Structure formats: structure tokens, C-alpha cells
């Protein structure tokens, strides 16, 4: 599969550092949780979660050289994509689904929420950020008919605290959890889900090169995040010693996650 190079047809600013890009193409076979490799010819190619199928939509936080180059593009300029890659969320089953998202992870969950709401299923989205300005997709999720619970670390919106605090009430009702966000958040959600015995699926990130199971770059204790993931169950992740602890850089060298929320050895 070679990249398809198509124009950008829409750009939506989501927060001070995040934009949604709508491409002049569709990816009808994609399921929520899957990703594309997005290519700016002459710059680089990086993985991004699919936010909508038709038209193909992605949401990107500007965090480094590639994402800043993407933010500098205008409507009409062209980017390449290939995909969909990986395994997405399994949306089957009855009862309420709780989506827990942090940062741009909420965008990937928006795809899952829109699929669930198409089937009139009950959806609660718990989202978190440092401050009110970090939140994304709140109105669009409400417009779908999803319940939205918010936590901010500075208390400028919703409850003061972490996204897991915002999820407390919904956890009593939820029959399953889908989560996407920073790894420390995912590790907390995994512990919560295992403790409360709620089936959970979490979308994990690792540094990716090929995106389709050849190079081994995105290994997570021997699982390939690009092929076996990026969505794994909480049970699977609890068996993978590297989850929450170790990630790899572009050389393949392993590093420990630093700071709050890192799993202890």
C-alpha cells in the first residue's frame, strides 16, 4: 500500500495547540481506534488516530517538528496517508460504555462515540486536561447525545483533579471502558478497571516506523502496537511488563517513563 496524496479540505482549531484536519478522501473500512500514517512529503510520516471515516479526519496536537509542520499547512495543500492500520475497539455488548480520554486521545474516542450513538447506545465521556483550554470535542460529543464529565487539574472546568475523578460516577454504571490518552492515565484506568472488574480496552502509543508489522520498532513486551494493538484489553496490558514503564526511541533504545503515574518495577 503506497500513500495516497490528497488535499486538505478543512482545518478546525480545537484548542491553542490542537487542530483537526479534514482530507479529501475517505477510509470506509476504518474502525474506531485504528490509525493512519500521515505523510508530509519531504518532512516525515507519523501515526495518528482516525477521527472520522468520511471524509478522513484526524486531530493533531503540535508537539514537535512533524506536527508543527502539519499545523503550518493550509487548506488546499496536500498530505499523504496510508492505512487503516492496527486493531480498533470492539464496540459490541449491551449497557453503557464509558470513554475515558486525555489530551488528543479524546479525538480518537470521538470516533467510537459517534459509532455507538449511531446505534443509540448509552455513552459517557470522561475527559481531562490541565486547564479548561486543554479540552477538546466537548460540544461535538454533547451534540451526539453523549454525557460528558470533565476534570481539570487547576479546577478551571469540571471537577478539580484527574480524569479518573471525573469518571467516578459513570464507573458505577459502565459495562465497559474504552480509553485513550497519556500512558500514565491509561495505567491508572487499567488498575481501576481491573479492581472494579469492568472490561476495558485501552489504546496505547509507541514510537512507530513502518506501521505494518515489519520493523519491530513499536514492540511492547513483544506485542506490536501497530498490528496487535494499538487497542489492548486491560487484562492483556497487565501481563506486559513494559506497559506503563518502558518505551523506545527512534534508535530502539528502551527508556523508563518518568514522573507521576509511571508503573513501579
Amino acid at each position, binding site marked *: 500500500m503506497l500513500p495516497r496524496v490528497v488535499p486538505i479540505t478543512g482545518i478546525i482549531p480545537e484548542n491553542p495547540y490542537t487542530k483537526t484536519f479534514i482530507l479529501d478522501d475517505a477510509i470506509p473500512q476504518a474502525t474506531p481506534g485504528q490509525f493512519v500514517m500521515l505523510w508530509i512529503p519531504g518532512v516525515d510520516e507519523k501515526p495518528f488516530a482516525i477521527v472520522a471515516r468520511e471524509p478522513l479526519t484526524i486531530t493533531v496536537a503540535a508537539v514537535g517538528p512533524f506536527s508543527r509542520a502539519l499545523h503550518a499547512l493550509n487548506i488546499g495543500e496536500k498530505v499523504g496517508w496510508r492505512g487503516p492500520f492496527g486493531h480498533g475497539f470492539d464496540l459490541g455488548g449491551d449497557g453503557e460504555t464509558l470513554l475515558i480520554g486525555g489530551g488528543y486521545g479524546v479525538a480518537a474516542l470521538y470516533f467510537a462515540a459517534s459509532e455507538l450513538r449511531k446505534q443509540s447506545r448509552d455513552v459517557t465521556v470522561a475527559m481531562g486536561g490541565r486547564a479548561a483550554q486543554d479540552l477538546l470535542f466537548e460540544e461535538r460529543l454533547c451534540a451526539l447525545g453523549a454525557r460528558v464529565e470533565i476534570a481539570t487539574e487547576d479546577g478551571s472546568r469540571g471537577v478539580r483533579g484527574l480524569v479518573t475523578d471525573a469518571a467516578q460516577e459513570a464507573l458505577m454504571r459502565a459495562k465497559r471502558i474504552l480509553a485513550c490518552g497519556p500512558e500514565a492515565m491509561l495505567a491508572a484506568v487499567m488498575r481501576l478497571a481491573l479492581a472494579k472488574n469492568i472490561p476495558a480496552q485501552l489504546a496505547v502509543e509507541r514510537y512507530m516506523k513502518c506501521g505494518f508489522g515489519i520493523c519491530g520498532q513499536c*514492540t511492547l513486551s513483544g506485542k506490536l502496537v501497530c498490528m496487535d494493538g494499538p487497542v489492548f484489553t486491560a487484562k492483556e496490558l497487565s501481563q506486559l511488563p513494559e506497559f506503563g514503564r518502558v518505551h523506545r526511541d527512534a534508535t530502539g533504545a528502551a527508556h523508563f517513563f518518568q514522573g507521576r503515574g509511571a508503573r513501579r518495577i
Partner: protein
Amino acid sequence: MSEPDLSVTICGVRLRNPTVLASGILGLSEDLLIRVGEAGAGAVTSKSCGLKPRAGYPNPVVADWGAGLINAVGLSNPGVDATMEEVRTAKRVLKPKGVAVIASIFAESVWDFGVVAQKISPAEPDLIEVNISCPNVEHEFGQFFCATPYVAAQVTRRVKQSTDIPIIVKLSPNEANIAEIARAVVDAGADAVSAINTLGPGMVIDIESRAPIISNRIGGISGAAIHPIAVRCVNDIARAVPVPIVGIGGNAAARDAIEMIIAGAHAVGIGSAIYSRGLAVFAETTRGIEAYMRQHNFARLDDFRNSVMETAPTAGSRIVIPQPTEP
């Protein structure tokens, strides 16, 4: 008839079956090497490591262009010190399962090949594969080392002096005379050779943006498209030198592997096919070879190795070009 024996011994190292994970595919962590070993490979090769960590080229570094893959990863690797730990752990876990571990190395100079070989040796890989044939870093490393028999022999000699572990020298299909290079490295002490590394380099262009798809502009070609070239290279080498050969290039099924063995290979490397066939390719290939052996009453791989029928053209088969006749 008794069970066919699919095992093969290369430089004193026994492989339970002839399938080998080729270097640079998945071999980035001990966990992945172990996973491939458990999926059925007879041996696994770690990704080529050098003296220092290298991030490699920006993406895209690999693309599927329809009939094969093109890649220029840029020899990204965490450095020999990290790879040593990876190889050590993989060996500890895979040894009891009967899976051999091969450590692949590259370097920027003849001297450094020796340093890297020396540094990886305490991890006790069963074999060391010396990658003198990466086409993506010409001028800087690979191509230079296998471009002439003289330099290829120098690297071989240097590595042999630096380790007691048997070495496999990995050759490139991109030289005019692969048999000559094989002869040079074997004369210099190579215990085995593997062939082929990727073909090319080649180039794939996006016609919308007119940008090369691979960030390095050019990349090595692998997969089904290169299998006939790999078979020819293996046969050229088998005719030239008596050492074991690991036949690599486009192997995706038992038929491909059997062809390689008939051409002269002791073992068969599998890389790109993991993309299309998944890890089951190792067990499926082994099963298919076994079925072929039963069908043909072969007890051991030796019974059909290096057994290409000689088909010298005879006078009768020469094409006669019709001469134009006067009107």
C-alpha cells in the same frame, strides 16, 4: 519410511528446522526474537547493530509498492551494548527451545567491525552475521565493504580475529560477481555466507507530489520480486564455495524455501513475507518442506540440497535467427 529430519547443522550449531528470521525484521527486542522463535523459526537474527546508537532516517522508511517492499531504515539500532543484552536474554530463553540466536553486526570501518564483534561476543550468540551488504548507506558503510573482494576479505579477517564465535558473512546481490566475493570471504575465514541482502537500491515516486516515497530517496528491494535473483545468487555461491549458505530473499512459502535448498542453501531466511503471511510463515514453511520430503522420500535436507539438474544448452536448442530473404 521414518520421519523426515528437518534439522540442519551450520558451523556446529544445530537448527531444529531450516527457517531463519532475517536481520532487520522484528528483531528489535528480545521479546520479539523470542516470539518469532516460539512461532516456529529454527533460528532468529537480531537487527544489525553498530558501535553507537543510530536513529536512522525519517519516515517513510519502508513501503509496500505492490510486488515487494522497499526500505531504507538507515541501520537504526540502539548500539552494540544494548543489543548485547537483547541477544543474551533471547539466547537464554530460546536455547532450551532449540532455537539458535544469530547476532547481526555492521560498522563504519574495517577496524570497528572487529570492535563490534568483540563487544557482542560475551552475549554468546550461536553465530555472528556480518552485514557488509546494506545498500542504503553507501559511501558511509555497507556497499563499500562488499564492493570489492579485497575489502570484503579484510572485514572477514578482522572479525575472525576478534571472536571465537562462527561467522556468517552476508552478501549483496548488487555486485557483478557474487561468487567472487563469496570466494574471497571464505578464503579469509568466513564459516558461512548468507545471501542476499536487499536488491538495488530502487526508487518509488509518488506521482501526485513527485516526492520519493522513501525519505532516503532510494531503498533496498525485498520480497517476492527478488526471489529468483536470490536463488541464482545462492546457486552461484554454492558452485563457488563449500561453506554453509543461508539463502535469503523473497522466501514466503515452502516452495520458495525448497527452491533455495535445491540451489544450495542449508537454511532459508525469511523477512518481508512476515508482512503478508504473519509469523505463521515459519511453521507453514517447515510443514511444507516436510510434506515435500515425504513425497520425494527424502530423509534429510542433504538428500536434495545443492541438486540443481545440469542443463547445459545443446546445439539443437540454440535459437536460429532467420535471415531476411530477398523479395
